[in-house]
């Protein structure tokens, strides 16, 4: 009877130890899983809240022939809810990447904003030798993608693609 009692104790303690460690592992796994899910949810939510759009007259995108090389000027509005980073931007004209050296940005408005917040307009001037061969009224495709600044440790990107007509 005494032997039976001891072995029962041993089994009980073993069961407790096993269940405790399993619980600990489960809790840890669940925590990390839920953390990852939350992170992903935040990323998805952030992606929903980031947006940029072409602003202005798509039939009147200025191409300046007086410069060397020619310059194309257009405007982009931050239509999302979070601040975007104008220094982390990629621009493609007719599928061709414009090197960052040929991209300059200026905030528009009075007083002039200092960061690309929601509803802030930015002027983008592109300079590239390939523009010299474009006709004055050429239709070109503009693709812009921009990274956001970090929001609660997460950042995302927004982009737009627009077909526009140059006005030389």
């Amino acid at each position, binding site marked *: 009877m005494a032997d039976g009692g001891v072995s029962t104790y041993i089994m009980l303690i073993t069961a407790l130890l096993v269940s405790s460690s399993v*619980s600990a592992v489960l809790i840890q796994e669940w*925590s990390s899983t839920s953390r990852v899910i939350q992170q992903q*949810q935040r990323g998805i939510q952030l992606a929903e809240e980031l947006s940029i*759009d072409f602003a202005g007259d798509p039939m009147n*995108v200025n191409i300046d022939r007086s410069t060397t090389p020619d310059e194309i000027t257009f405007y982009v509005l931050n239509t999302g809810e979070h601040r975007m980073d104008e220094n982390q931007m990629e621009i493609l004209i007719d599928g061709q990447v414009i090197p960052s050296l040929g991209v300059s940005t200026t905030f528009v408005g*009075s007083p002039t904003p200092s960061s690309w917040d929601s509803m802030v307009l930015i002027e983008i001037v592109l300079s590239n030798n390939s523009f010299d061969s474009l006709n004055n009224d050429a239709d070109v495709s503009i693709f812009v993608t921009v990274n956001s600044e970090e929001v609660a440790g997460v950042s995302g990107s927004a982009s737009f693609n627009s077909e526009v007509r140059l006005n030389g």
Partner: protein
Amino acid sequence: MGASAGIGGLIIGIAMLVVFTMAISAFDAQVATGLDAIESASVPDPSFTIDDVNLEQHVIHEVSMTAGNRGTGYVDGILRANVGSDECGGFSATFSTTGGEIDVGNVVITNHGFCPDSSTPTWTIYDSSLVVQTPSSVANFSAPVFRQYIYANITNQGEDFLKTDDVWVFYDGEEPETLTDSQDSTRSEILGVGTNWYSGQTIQLFWDDESSLNTEYERLAFTAGPTTLVRSTS
């Protein structure tokens, strides 16, 4: 023995409660972020219409005359302008006289009209019955101040109000400025003050620009959020 089993059960129970609590909190967090996403996705895009845009260049914005050119022998009357056979879009102004001299401080333009170009028009001075006056000494008006006038009406067709500070205006795709900043005339409904543009509200816009500094615009574009509308001037 019984007590030990009870304690063991308690520990297991507490562990399960902890797991359950964490599961619930994670579920809550997911639901909250999901609801936020749904909420942000449900904001409708701005919707508005440009009802009309009328541009008139070489509008007679102001008339003046120098001292000594006010003439004599005039009575209160009406001033008209023409360039050749063009009657400057029906330009008309009323004036009063003091001792037979035209009182230039009381020339009130009732129709600014628009001339075919910026050359000084020929002035015709009528009495109030539109009979050309025959003064003893003819008055000479100076070259008028010409401006470019743009009239537009825009209506918010969306469900939500828009802020005029968040609506951008482009002239032939360039020179963007907010709707608020674009309006600096007392004849505009906004007059440079940011305001709410409510659902269903039509705003009357008016620009008077130095015509010497501005080309004749062909298209006006309005951008509010992701919505852009463009209209040719007429």
